[in-house]
Structures are given as C-alpha cells and as structure tokens.
C-alpha cells in the first residue's frame, strides 16, 4: 500500500467524520429540536452532530497541513489484515450452517497459518485444542446452546 493511498485513507476518514457530523445534525433537526426550555428528541444529537463536524473539520485541516504521512501498513501487513478479516467473516457466515465446533476448528487453523505458525502439527494442535476448549467452556460449563450445524 503506497504512501498516497494511506494519506487518502486517513484524510478520507476525517472527511467522512465531517460529513457524518453534518448528516447527524440535519437528521436530528428532523426529529424536532424543541426549545431549550422544552428540548425535543433532536436537540441533543443535533449538538453532537455539530460537535463532530467541527472537531473533524479542524482535524482534517491539520491533517492536510501536516507533512507527516508515514505508511501505517505495508503490503504484507495489508494482506494479513485482509485474510484475518476474511476469516472472521467466513466464521460468521458458516457458523450457523456448519456449527460452531467445526467452524471454530477451521478458523483457528486459518488464523495460525495467517499468523505464520510454521508446520502442520502445531496449527493442528492449536486449532484442535481451541475447538475442544470452546466446546467444554460454552457447552459443559456455561450451558449455552450454540448452533451445532451438521453435527446436530
């Protein structure tokens, strides 16, 4: 990920917060501002929206004037982040279908490999141990009924 991309990302976030603040203030006005003596449901979020917009504007200006735009993620780090996030997302999507034990086993294995735990035995042992620990913790100790999926 290049410097320009990171610069845009940080600035985009500040800009997004500025827009968000304005949107919150506008929507809040629609809820009814009321008066200071009889505040409506929109009064409090209106002021919060204004505060968010003002703070974000100042941060955005200082960000644009700053020379310090060090990259926060190298390419390798960005790939790791995407793979970690994808594994989390896959766990969420697959858990109701396959059941939490199988998905936990697979996800733990994936996390080990993404974080570069070398070999096959160590990742297998960690993922097997994690799945067993979570099964014992939630099923036997806490009596929480979690989706079992194909294991019924």
């Amino acid at each position: 990920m290049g410097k320009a991309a990171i610069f845009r990302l940080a600035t985009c976030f500040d800009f997004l917060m500025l827009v968000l603040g304005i949107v919150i203030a506008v929507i809040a006005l629609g809820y009814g501002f009321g008066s200071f003596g009889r505040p409506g449901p929109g009064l409090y979020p209106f002021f919060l929206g204004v505060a968010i917009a003002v703070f974000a504007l100042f941060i955005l200006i200082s960000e644009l004037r700053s020379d310090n735009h060090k990259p926060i993620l190298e390419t390798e780090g960005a790939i790791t982040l995407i793979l970690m996030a994808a594994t989390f997302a896959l766990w969420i999507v697959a858990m109701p279908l396959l059941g939490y034990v199988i998905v936990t086993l697979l996800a733990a294995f994936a996390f080990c490999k993404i974080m570069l735990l070398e070999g096959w035995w160590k990742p297998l042992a960690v993922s097997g141990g994690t799945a067993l620990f979570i099964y014992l913790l939630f099923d036997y100790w806490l009596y929480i009924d979690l989706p079992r999926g194909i294991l019924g």
Partner: protein
Amino acid sequence: MEGLGLLYNGFVNSFTLVNLVACFAGALIGTIVGVLPGLGPTATMALMLPFTLKFGATTGLIMMTGVWYGAMYGGSTTSILVNIPGEAASVVTCLDGYQMCKKGRAGAALALVATGSFVAGTIGILGLQFFAPVLGNAALSFGPPEFLCFMIFAFVLLSNLSAEAPLKGALMIAFGLFLSTIGINPMDSYPRFTFGSEKLMLGIDFLPIAMGLFGIAEILSIALEKYVKPQINKIRFRDLYPSREEVRRSVYPTLRGSILGFFVGLLPGPCTVISTFVSYSLEKRLSKNPEEFGHGAVEGVVGPESANNSAVMGSMVPLLTLGIPFAAPSAIMLAGLRMHNVEPGPMLFTTHPDVFWTFIAAMYLGNIMLLVLNLPLVGAFAKIAVIRPQILMPIISLICLVGVYSVRNSIFDVWVMIVAGVVGLFLRKWKFPIAPFIIGVVLGPTTENSLRQTLMMFKGDVSLVGDRPVSLTLLALAAAFLAFKFAAPLFGKKFPLKIEEDSKL
C-alpha cells in the same frame, strides 16, 4: 461502627466458593494478561463480560477488578525481566527495573514491587472504603445540573489527557455519545437513527463494540507485528530477598506512590499510566541521588508500581459513587454492572450495599491472593511471556467470536464486533484514542438525561447553573484546565501531563 459491621457482612458474603474462585480467577488471569505483551486489561475485561452473566453482579465486579489490578501486578514482571512492559502502566518500570535486572537484582526488584503493590492495593482499598460512602452520601444531593457539569468536566480532562491531539479525543467522545443515541430514546420513546431497522431499535449493544475496539483490534494489531522472541532471565526463589538497604529505600516511595496513585485515580483519563509518570518524577525530584534514576534506582521501580495499583482503587470511587467511569476499564465495569441490572451511583449504598461491601472485602482477599501468587510464581509467570502470539491470538479470537455471539445469540452483534475491530485498528494507527470513545458510549444516556432535565429545570436559562456552587466549581475547573492548556505554550511551557494513549489501556 456501622461501616465495620457492613464490612464484616461483606467478608461473610465474599467467603462463598463462587466469589473466592472469581477473585482468584480474576487475579490469576489479570497477572497473566499483565505479563503477556499484547492483550491489555481492558480488552480482557471486555472479553470476560459474557462469562460474568452466569453469576451475580458482585461476582462479576470482583472478577473484573481482580483482572485490572492483577494486570498491574503482572505488568512489572516483563518490564523488569525483559525490558518489555506487559501493559501501558508498566512502561516507567522498564527504566530502572531492567537496569536492576542487569545488575543481578531482578529478584529483589520483583519482590519489592509485589510487596509495594500489596501495600498500595491495601491503602487504595482503605481509601475506597472510606471515601466512597462519604462521596456517595454527598452525591445524593446532586441534581441533574451537577451530574451534567461533572460529565463536562470529565470529558474536558479525558479528551486532553488521553490523546496526543486533544481534538481527536474530543471527536471520539462526541462520536461515542452519538452512538448511544441510536435506538428508541427512553425519555420520549422516539426512535432515532434506526432507519427502519428493527435491530437498531434497541440500540447498538455496548459489548460487541468494546470487544471489537479492544479485543479484535488488539489481535489484528499483534497479527501485523513481527514476533521477536524475548530473552527471559531466570529467577530463583532465593533471589527474591532484597537487601536491608533496598528495603529501607523502598518504604517511603511505596507509601508516597500509594497515596498519590489513589488521588490520581480519581481523575478522568488513563489514571494508572499517569500515576506512574507522576510518581516517577516525584521520586526523582525527592531523591538525594537523582542521577541514579535510569540506572537501577529502587525508588523508580517501587514508587510507580505502587501508584498504578492504588490508582485502580481510586478510579473505582467515581464509578461506584457517581456512576461515572473515568477510565476505559471502569467503563467496561459499568457496562457489566448494568448487564446485571445494578446501576452504580449515589443510590448504590442504599439499594445494593451488599454489592459494595462484598466487593471491598473481596478486594482485601484478592490483594493477599495476588501477593501469594506473585512472589513464589514469578519465575513461572515470566515463562508465560515467551508464549508465541501465533498460538495465543487464534484462541483469543475465537473466544471473542463465540463469546459475543453467546450473549444474545446474535450474528449481527458479531458483525458489529468485527467492524469495530477493523475500525479500531485504523483509529489506533491514526492516533485516535479509544478510551474516550467507549466512555462516551457508556455515559451517553446519562449525559442526555442530565442535559434535558437540566434544561427543563432551568426552563432553558442555562445561566442559572451559576446558582449551583458544585456545578459552577466543576465548570470553572474545566475552564481553568483548558485555559492553562492553551496558555502554557504561549509562555514557552509544554503541558506536562500529555500522555499518549497506549493501545493497551
């Protein structure tokens, strides 16, 4: 005398198997978390919230506080032995702790720190025991204007002390306050920012946000770092005896750190971290040999370590007496208590006195447990520091996933946690502090209620705040703080209490 009777009842209640186990488990987990560079006490407490639901509010509170001050005990171990702070409040300990280790005095340093932490913890509990009911009684006379001004005061200090750039802290507080407005407003049953979604009607649950911002963000952050195996110096039990001179030099710094830490704990912000910096500079200033600091001065180790333990107890005062958390871990505790339908605040001492006094008694026991755990097992805890994150992080990730799902059986909550985790990672990289955000989320409803009630009380005339001495004092303090902050650079002085929030707060 009534206090002693209540404390006795507290001891009776805390001597149940479940409370003793909770206290021990919290202390043990806290020590391990403190030792491990990575996951901090706030993330661990957020992660443990779902498990406390199985037990009562008191048990949950005992366990969580055990984690928090257990982490303060454990954090010093890696600072002294490996020069890696286990958590943010142990950064200062590295300066002289590791130098003592290099001189072969690691065992003595660890023993003095454990003893100092025990003394500080006990002084902190005594302070909490005496101050909290008094302040709680005083707070009974507080109305909405006082609470509102208290929160304004807290927000001003929090945004300035938690972040490198105060505006970023202020933005995070405002955004946290906004997030708490999503859902049906309990004051007038009006749905806000729900956009027709049924899931948003009940609002955004605190737990997935906290677990995402502190737990998942931390895991992602560690996953992106390159792992360097730390070298641990071996410690034998017989090495733990400090010399007579070391004991003599540590007595007053321990006492000073304990008292100072407790009062710093009363302030909004990362109190445990601030207390260590303040204590270190105080000890250096008072020392007859300030040149020894940075080269293994025992005062520079025991003072800050005592201060951070005592600060934990100090920060419990505003939480329990006013229901206002001034630090991220106490915000997690407030959320935990609310999950058990216990609302801390002035009424806690009349509606749930058992919660407070059982908690106090359990803290005395927990402090003894921590001393017993930390002295003989210091070698074993040091070995935990070498467990690779590639093994630990997958386990913690999955506990987060299953844990947050198990609370409401909600896939939506898991999505919220993951999104919060990824956003949290970038916020940390861009130096946006997380603690003010989470405190904003927790205090949002109280702030809005106080604001609306105040406005209605004064019929819209906010100048009437001037007629309320407590409110006026708090606003004046906030204004004075801001004035000092802005005026200091004009006179060529840097503001001394600028603490950059560590990811592990």
